[in-house]
């Protein structure tokens, strides 16, 4: 089953994450960014994402959101009732790169777990590395 990667964020954070990832690994298929710009109605934002999901029956969706309980995150809560929509918060660049690279090679649930793990292990300060 095809897996889509959705990055949702405040402002242009999501699109700059996707742009930076393609700078490093080249353009990726089925990786899309949704940024909530100031002044945009939350319902419109939500509808756009839901339409994307609706139009792709029998596909999987891993959503990477910028902030736990942020507005972009909140607009995904209804969609998460579907079995094929998974969500990981706290997106950073290593998470996007890893998920984009592995999405066509791993079972969907393993991919979601991996995104979370990579996100956490990629956050580190020099002291942590040296003390290992």
């Amino acid at each position, binding site marked *: 089953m095809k897996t889509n990667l959705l990055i949702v964020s405040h402002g242009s954070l999501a699109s700059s*994450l996707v742009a930076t990832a393609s700078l490093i690994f080249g353009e990726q298929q089925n990786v899309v960014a949704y940024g909530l710009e100031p002044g945009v109605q939350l319902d419109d934002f939500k509808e756009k994402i839901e339409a994307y999901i609706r139009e792709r029956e029998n596909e999987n969706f891993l959503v990477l959101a910028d902030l736990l309980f942020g507005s972009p995150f909140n607009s995904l809560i209804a969609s998460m009732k579907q079995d094929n929509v998974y*969500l990981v*918060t706290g997106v950073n*660049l290593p998470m996007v790169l890893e998920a984009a690279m592995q999405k066509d090679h791993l079972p969907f649930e393993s991919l979601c777990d991996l995104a979370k793990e990579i996100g956490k292990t990629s956050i580190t*300060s*020099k002291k942590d590395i040296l003390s290992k």
Partner: protein
Amino acid sequence: MTCNILMVMHGHYAEALLKAAEMFICEHPPVDIIPVEPGDSLDELENQIRSYVTRHDQVLIITDMMAGTPNILCSRLLKDHAFALVCGTNLSMLIEVLNGENTQNPWDLGKLICEKGKEDIVFMNTLLKKENQQEE
């Protein structure tokens, strides 16, 4: 005592991250950005970063990813300069930095935002599943 914050990241990522954080925090201490674009001279970038850490005390540098050029350039300078370096920055970490917490030394601040960043990476579906099971 205030930390000097420098973001060294690929392309427009630092700028976008800062703009997103500013949707939550209106007033914050100044943050400097050195973007790393494809085709930039690595020597020149290294000089820019070196000049920053030489001119400022109490520096915390945050980068986008460990194996990326921005982080590698900064790591090299750690040999001769004292500053705190954190990689894998996400939005909640930057918000924490801007949130008036940067009154401590950059190393403690770095540690704090690492913890915060990891804490806020959550696989929601497993979390919800667990909660549902508890309710049943």
